[in-house]
Structure formats: structure tokens, C-alpha cells
């Protein structure tokens, strides 16, 4: 294993640990606002993972949209619902124990499947920039989903407006 391999592995473990820690923080922190900030941390971690997987465009999109839009939106929502001031006690509800058990077995199952299934493995090197190809593919093969998403966003816009307007 050459030096770069080791370094990249170390970097991966670092990033993965950070992301998971942030995720745990989002879930466990009692104060919802702090949880929001931890969420932003997780998003950064995921963006780093994308970079390691050579999907730079996606990393940027992740940072821009997830952190820029969705995380901010969530923080606004937290402020709007003034749960900032109210110091709620533990954020967990009555059934968290049952949920924990169920989810750990689910994780176990997933882990077994991940190890067991013969995933496709054809390691090919990406030389050039893939973004233009992505563009063409979006507008040729996946043109129909692209249009549908646009209508979806329009509907969401109006829907959110209807529901949340003062």
C-alpha cells in the first residue's frame, strides 16, 4: 500500500468520523438550534465525502443547496417556532428505546447485506471533467424527470405559500 493510499484512508476515516459525530450531535443535542448547527456540520462532512468520490460538482451543489438553502430554512423555522427560548428537557420521546433497538437490528441487517452482496466493481479512472457530460445527460436522457421536478418545485412553492401564509 503506497503512501498516498494510506493518507487517503486516514483522510477518509477522519472525514467519516467527523460526519458521524456531527450526525450524532444533530440527533442527540437537546437544544434544537445547536442540533441545527450540527446538521450543517454533517452536510459539510458529506460534501467532503463527495469530493473524495471525485463528484466535485455534487459537492458544490451539496454545499450550496443543502447548507445554503435547506439548513438555513430549518434554522429560520426553529426561530419562527420560538423553540429556541423554550428550554425543553430531553429531546427524546417515550419510544426512543424501542426505536433504538429496531434501528440497530436494521443497521445490522444492512451491514450484513453490504458485506454479502457482490457489488459491481469496475474501477475506472476519471480523467477529464465530467460536468459537461452530466449536463448533456440531464437534458437528453433524463429530460422528462428534469421537467417533472420543475413542476414539482412550482407546486411546492405555491403549496408552502398556501399553508404557511399569515
Amino acid at each position, binding site marked *: 500500500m503506497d503512501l498516498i493510499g494510506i493518507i487517503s484512508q486516514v483522510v477518509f476515516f477522519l472525514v467519516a468520523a467527523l460526519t458521524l459525530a456531527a450526525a450524532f450531535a444533530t440527533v442527540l443535542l437537546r437544544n434544537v438550534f445547536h442540533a441545527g448547527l450540527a446538521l450543517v456540520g454533517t452536510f459539510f462532512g458529506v460534501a467532503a465525502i463527495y469530493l473524495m468520490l471525485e463528484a466535485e460538482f455534487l459537492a458544490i451543489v451539496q454545499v450550496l443547496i443543502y447548507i445554503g438553502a435547506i439548513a438555513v430554512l430549518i434554522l429560520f423555522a426553529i426561530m419562527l417556532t420560538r423553540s429556541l427560548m423554550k428550554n425543553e428537557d430531553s429531546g427524546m420521546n417515550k419510544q426512543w428505546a424501542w426505536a433504538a433497538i429496531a434501528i440497530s437490528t436494521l443497521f445490522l441487517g444492512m451491514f450484513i*447485506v453490504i458485506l454479502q452482496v*457482490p457489488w459491481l466493481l469496475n474501477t475506472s479512472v476519471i480523467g477529464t471533467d465530467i460536468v459537461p457530460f452530466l449536463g448533456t445527460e440531464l437534458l437528453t436522457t433524463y429530460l422528462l424527470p428534469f421537467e417533472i421536478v420543475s413542476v414539482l418545485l412550482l407546486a411546492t412553492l405555491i403549496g408552502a405559500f398556501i*399553508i404557511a401564509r399569515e
Partner: protein
Amino acid sequence: MDGLVLLYLSPELILIAASLLIFGLDLVWRGRGSQTLGIVALVALFLSLIVTPLIAFRADPTELLSIKWGNQIALFCKICGPTVADLSYWEPALVADAIYVSDNLTNFFRIIASITGIVVLFASFDFMRGRKFVGEFYALFLLAIAAMMMMAGSTNLLMIFLTLEFLSIVSYILTGYLRENKKSNEAAIKYFLFGAIASAIMLYGMSMFYGATGSLNLAQIGAVITADTNYEVLALFAAALMLAGIGFKIALVPFHMWAPDAYEGAPTPVTAFLSVGPKVAGFAILLRLTLQVIYVYQFDWVALYSVVAVITMTLGNVIALTQSNVKRLLAYSSIAQAGYMLIGVASISGSGQPLDGVNAVLIYIAAYLFTNLGAFLVVIAIENKTGAVDISQYGGMIKRAPALAILMTYFMLSLAGIPPTAGFLGKFFVFGSAINSGLAWLAVIGVINSVISLFYYMRVIRPMFFDPTPEGAQPISYSRWLQTGLVVTAVMTLLIMLFPTPLFNLVSYGTQIFGIAMR
């Protein structure tokens, strides 16, 4: 993408264009003329209903009127480009890359979706009079119907996810439409949270499929999985997770918990739509998933579907026994009906006989569509005038609104499966296909369930005929629209039973692509 191909997307496009038009008009008229917007929506739905057969026709000199319900398939795929392939039968290889397919099954569900739309619109005209955001309601509703149609046609994991989410989001908005009503809000938030979690689980399943086969197209995934049996682990694990998403939409038992609350909370026309729309589209996806992807592991999915079917039917029927709120009762009843449909899916045996699972499901869907919408129309008619939603408030309905009482009796009997109704034909086919494919025990449980179900269906009718009318109750009048809606559903429920041949032709056309057509 040349113009001809757009023709094969025309029903969806018409609806989307109409909804945009309605948004625009609503903007221009600033809230006045909501009635005309409704008419526009209705016209759009009729247009899409008429266009579907036009697409399906194919000039065939050999046929009688030289019109044959052909089975062209418009493919929107990477390699073959958006071309129109004229296939008599659905070879996976040919449609390997298709993202969206406008084939027989899609046409069948387009017809079903547009009919649902029309009938629910009939119901909502009354309901919407005098409320805010009426234009938006109609527009969003049209989008929901378009999403339903697209769900039926999508043979690509991405498309399935996208259309499912599209329908879900629009449904959340529609459910939460009555902002000031506490119940509507609560129903919407519950529906949203449950839906979001379920679709996340489904997504994870989809990623598994993509990981193993490298492709998003159902047919290709199916080919890879059937070719190599050690993918069995993945296929079933991922399918089970995907079942969460689809099960949520159909409201099968472990994933049904949202339904009673959402049905009770949502405005009644939306409840009517929820009880039919997403459920039917969900079955379209389930059919495609079962027949094209995991068909080879017959033993497993038959076992899974039978078990889920039994739990769904039994739980749905049994809990409905103690319900006193009509909408909640109809919610549990529609859960039970989903259980019966699942029996049809479980007994798919590809035997080519008329009594085959696939035909049974489609017939049951058609029958359930008219019966359930009819029942909801009656509930809406009563609620609009008296605001009564509890069974006890239905006292002496036979005097106040004899037509409504008689129709409600007819629809309840159809739901219970008493003969001279479409419901019976549906149940007959479903139980017949179960016995035909060797699941006789399933048919027996189904039959016992339909007897239990009769008890609560009769509980709805009993006060109408036997209890005295509460004092000061004047006769219930309802708009012309509701009347036409009731007439359409009642006549169709009777016609499907008395002259089922046209329905059988439509169904056999629908299942032709799977090679299990009803000769």
C-alpha cells in the same frame, strides 16, 4: 424529441398545462371566478380521458372497425432515443433503457386516474364554494392526477421515486388545505412525517438495487437479478425496503397507520381522492416491480404478499367494527379493500386463464374506484348540508334524503361484496384467482373477512333506515354536480356487474403487455 413522441405524453401534458393555466388565470382574476377554474379543470380531465384511447388506437385492417387497441410503446430512453416502438409484447431487452413507458398498463391507469379526477372534482365543486385559494386547489389537484398517471408509466427507479414524491407532496398540501381547521393541519403534518420517513426507506432500497445492477431501469435490474441467483439476498432485502414506500402509498398494514388520521382530518373530497388515487397508482408500481423485477423468486413474494394481505384485511375489517366516524370507518374499509387487492397480486400465476391474479387486481381496482368514490360522494353530500360525520347523526336519512340513503345502501353492499354490485364481481375475481393459483386458504380468510365487513357496513346503513329523524331536520338538497357524480358512480357500479365485458376488454388490453391477457 420529435413531436410525435409528445403525443404519447399528451394526457399528462394536458393536465400540467391546464394547471399552469389555472394558476395564471387565478392570478389574473385575483380570486374571482373560482367556478370557471373548476370548469377548466374538468375540461382538462375530460380531454385527457378522451386522448388516452386515441393514443392507444392503431389502425389495424384486420380488426372489425379497423381499429385495434394496439400496444405502441413510446420509449424515452437514452440509447433508442425517444422513439415509438410498435411492440406486441414487452421484451425487457427492447425497453432496457426506457425511463418512462406509455404502454397498455399506463393507458389503463390513465383512464382510471382521469375518471377518479372527474368524480372527485364533481364532489369538490360544492365543497369549495366560498373558500379561499380555490384556484390553487384545482391546479394542485390536476397536478396530483398527472403525478398518478406518471407513476403508472414509470419503469425507472428515479422516475418511480420522483413521481411518488410529487404525488405525496401535492397530497400533503391538499390534506393540509383547510389551514384554520386543526384536524386538517394535524392530518397533513402526520401524513408528511410518515410519508417522508417511508420514502427515505424506499430510497435506500432503490440505492441497493442501483448498486447491484448499475442501472435504474426495472427491466434491466430484473434481467440482472434473474440471471444471477446469488443476488436473491439483495433483491428481496431491497424489495422489502421498497415495499415500505409503496406500502405507505397503498396503506398496507404495517405502513397504514397514517391513513385513518389523514382520512379523518383531510377535507372530504381530498379524503375521497386519497382513498383511491395514491392507492391505485401504488398498485401500478407494485405490479411493475413484481412482474418485471422479482418475478422469478415467486415463492418469496407470494408468501410476503399473502401474509401482508391477511393482516391488512383482518386488521382493517376488525378495527372498522368499532368506528363511529364515517370517514374513519371508510378509511379502515379502504385499508381492508387494499388487502383484497393484494390477494389478487399474490395470486398472479401467469396461467393465462381469465381468473388470473393480474386481471383480478385491475378489475377490483375499477370496481373499488366507483364504489368507494360513490360512498364518499354521499358522505360529502350529507356533510355539506348537515356537517354530520358521525354515524349516529345519520338518523332517519331515508326520510330526509331517500335517494342518498338508497345509494349509500347500494354502495355499502358493493363494498361488502353482495352480488348485484361491482364489488361482488371484484371479490369474485380476486377469490377465484386465489383458488386458481393454489392459495385457497387465502380465499377462505378473505371470505370470512367479507362477512365480518358486512357487520360494520350495515352499521352505517342501520341508523339511516331504522333510527327516527332528529327533530328539525329538513330534507338534504345537493348540487347538480354531486347528483351527476352520484349517478355516474351508481350506474357504473351496476353496469360493471351486469355487463362486465367492456371492462374485461379494457383489463385484458391492460395486461396484454405482460403476456397474461384474458383471451
